[in-house]
């Protein structure tokens, strides 16, 4: 019932976004049918294009889960992009530094990415829980730190530069590679890992005592405290898990697709996760569908670009519109919630 209604609302929002997009397309002198045809073809027309959609959905699913698990604890993880970068880099580092037997090596690399991502979540979580620092700001700042740090690592002159001109590391050992799921595409086993992780997140949130406590903290801190929940520890846990999820996403992306860390590996997957998590109404299973929608938009956009029927900028406007329309209702709720929290927070400090 509720699911159907939510899906209906989302369908309507997507159509609205596309409708407004169509008007803008026409107004800027481009062919509406051609653009929309390429958009659909780019995402779904054959196995390879659909694989492209799935490939792009994979990291978005990770970052959506990252956003929503923090959100369920009443926290905002705005720094998934940086966690993705730092996780990706250290996965690659473990991939070209260690020599280990095949499966083990891969697992170690994934764990490395997850762990460093987790560290990147732990810091803002700790600052929030123990020092009251606003995680909205700290995750964002740490995100830039991660991006700039990894960029410097791999740029010419940096300690881990391994390309010729390109800013990237050397290639990881083949034992660390996440195999392709479909020959001839870039789709890797990362997708299946993402699905399994989504299920695990669902199980954690709704079927374990810790998940219960995490949700209670997000709903009403004071009531959770009354119910014997250690609020500070739970907030830290939520942020660590958020970092782990995004870091794992970065690792899967690097090990499965690029096979070496390169600075251009994310067109903003971390940011897409915010939209994804909100579209999913912070539900892990909803996030699977949200990520598919976002992946399709990204893949379709690439199709329009390739076909040359409209410039890249217009494609991005189209993507942005759809996301905006889908997220808008949730965004209003979110802003309200945030303002409320700031008010309560200010009160506690005065």
């Amino acid at each position, binding site marked *: 019932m509720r699911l159907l209604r939510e899906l209906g609302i989302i369908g309507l929002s997507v159509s609205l976004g596309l409708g407004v997009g169509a008007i803008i397309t026409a107004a800027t002198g481009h062919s509406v049918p051609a653009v929309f045809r390429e958009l659909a073809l780019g995402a779904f027309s054959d196995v390879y294009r659909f694989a492209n959609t799935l490939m792009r959905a994979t990291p978005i699913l990770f970052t959506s889960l990252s956003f929503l698990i923090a959100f369920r604890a009443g926290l905002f993880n705005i720094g998934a992009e940086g966690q993705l970068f730092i996780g990706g880099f250290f996965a690659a580092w473990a991939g070209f530094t260690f020599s280990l037997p095949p499966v083990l090596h891969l697992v170690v690399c994934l764990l490395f990415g997850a762990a460093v991502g987790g560290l990147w979540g732990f810091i803002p979580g700790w600052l929030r829980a123990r020092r009251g620092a606003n995680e909205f700001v700290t995750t964002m700042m740490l995100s830039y730190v991660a991006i700039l740090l990894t960029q410097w690592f791999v740029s010419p002159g940096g300690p881990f530069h391994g390309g010729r001109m390109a800013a990237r590391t050397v290639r990881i050992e083949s034992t660390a590679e996440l195999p392709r799921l479909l020959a001839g595409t870039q789709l890797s086993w990362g997708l299946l890992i993402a699905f399994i992780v989504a299920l695990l997140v669902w199980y954690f949130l709704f*079927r374990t*005592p810790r998940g219960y406590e995490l949700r209670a903290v997000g709903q009403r801190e004071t*009531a959770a405290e009354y119910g014997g929940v250690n609020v500070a520890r739970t907030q830290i846990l939520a942020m660590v898990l958020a970092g782990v999820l995004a870091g794992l996403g970065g690792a899967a992306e690097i090990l499965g697709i690029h096979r070496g860390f390169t600075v251009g590996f994310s067109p903003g997957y971390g940011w897409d996760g915010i939209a994804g998590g909100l579209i999913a109404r912070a539900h892990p299973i909803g996030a699977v569908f949200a990520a598919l929608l976002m992946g399709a938009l990204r893949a379709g956009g690439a199709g329009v670009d390739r076909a040359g029927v409209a410039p890249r900028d217009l494609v991005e406007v189209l993507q942005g519109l759809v996301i905006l329309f889908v997220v808008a209702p949730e965004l209003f709720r979110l802003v309200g919630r945030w303002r409320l929290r700031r*008010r309560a927070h200010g009160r506690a400090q005065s």
Partner: protein
Amino acid sequence: MNERERSVRGEAVRMEGIVKRFPGVTANAGIDLSLNYGEVHGLLGENGAGKTVLMSVLYGLYRPSEGQIYLEGNPVSIDSPAVAIRAGIGMVHQHFMLVPRLTVADNMVVGWETSRGPFLDRKRIRKRIKELSEQYGLEVDPDSAVEELSVGEQQRVEILKALYRGAEVLILDEPTATLPEQEVEAFFTTIRAMRDEGKAMVFITHKLREALTICDRVTVLRKGEKVGTVPTTDATEAQLAEMMVGREVVFEVQRDRVASEGRPLLQVEGLSAVDDRNVPAVEGVDLTVHDHEILGVAGVQGNGQTELVEAICGLRSAVQGHVMLNGEAVTGSSPRKMAEAGLVHIPEDRHRRGLVLNFSVAENAILGRQYEAPFAIGHVGQSKRAIAGYARELVERFSVVVPGVRTPARALSGGNQQRVILARELDRKPKVIVAAQPTRGLDVAGIEFVWEQLLAMRREGAGILLVSMDLDELMTLADRLVVMYQGKLVGEHRPGETDKQQIGLLMLGGAVETS
């Protein structure tokens, strides 16, 4: 406005055949209600009878599934509170909705005046507040922050807010539930002043005596249906009670005098604590609760009881002093440790502490025990079945009115929310119970039930710290009685040996008599 003018203005509101259905419940099943200008109209009924829902329909918070509302004879559709306010309808909720950090004056206009233009004429606002407070005896300082006000003052602000926005019809949902008896009279004076001005008021209460005192007519609801409307001139408490529950009510609590063995269960020594604004709220409190004993703490809300209770239960750090449970020092222990040591806490604020409103009744039933078997399966699992089964058992035993245990706690009526908390906490077989305002918002049967439960716990040996502002409750239950005033405990009394008046005086800071 005199009698004649009042009647000329005639009927303010007529609700006809109001039906409101929620999934699994019909909260209102075809209710008619007529409200006149210059009338105080009581709305009575057991917990969950549909009082709040009916008034929420009038205030535009819910749309009725069926039925029609008329304002001064004209059919209207009230889609939102904004529409209601514009139509001259105001509501003071069971739980206040003020912004604590803002001043009284700012609270008047927030979300209202601010939406009518970018500039505020503060001088004019303040002048208008002054006028209204003088006219109706609603004394408050427009420039003090709401968080610094007592509950009684906050209530005055809520009423002022409604009046400021031009309310001619005023809905008051259990306004006296948070007021100490001594302030009720002043509150009634305000109500009478508003009635004489010709305002129409709906007054929801569980206290029949109050209804008979202040109301002109009362309407009784039962299980979503209207039982009838009667003028108070020829109604009695017994008659109203019978209308409410459908049978005669005998209200009598058996008090046996099982002697305490004098074993101290809860000892508090020199406890001091500060409130959320870091202002000292509890100053050097000593108290001891023994086995088989109920120690009552009387006091007007806002005299440090909240902070005292929280400091005892591990929800607030003590600045000074010790808490001992069963002879062991537990000062500063976490709420979870306290619970494991055998102390349960019935919090005064059910929305802030007692419940996670968006969680289901089942999820709320295990709050505080989420990590215990059989609800938790180690760290890695949760038994939905065990949780639901347990919740169903509690709902049954404490007669909580709820369509199912998967219903969110938010959807329960105020009294039924309180029952969920009581059921959960009392079922833990505690050694020590810290109960703050445990019967607030309960109907007569509910109060009786809770009193019996507390007495049964006492009989079995528990020590109970009962914080209440209801003197009748304290006089009935407590073995010993102390009064809390401005962070300190004053005097100790035995209910049999002191009279209510004397305690009431102490609550208001009257001279401490040495007895």
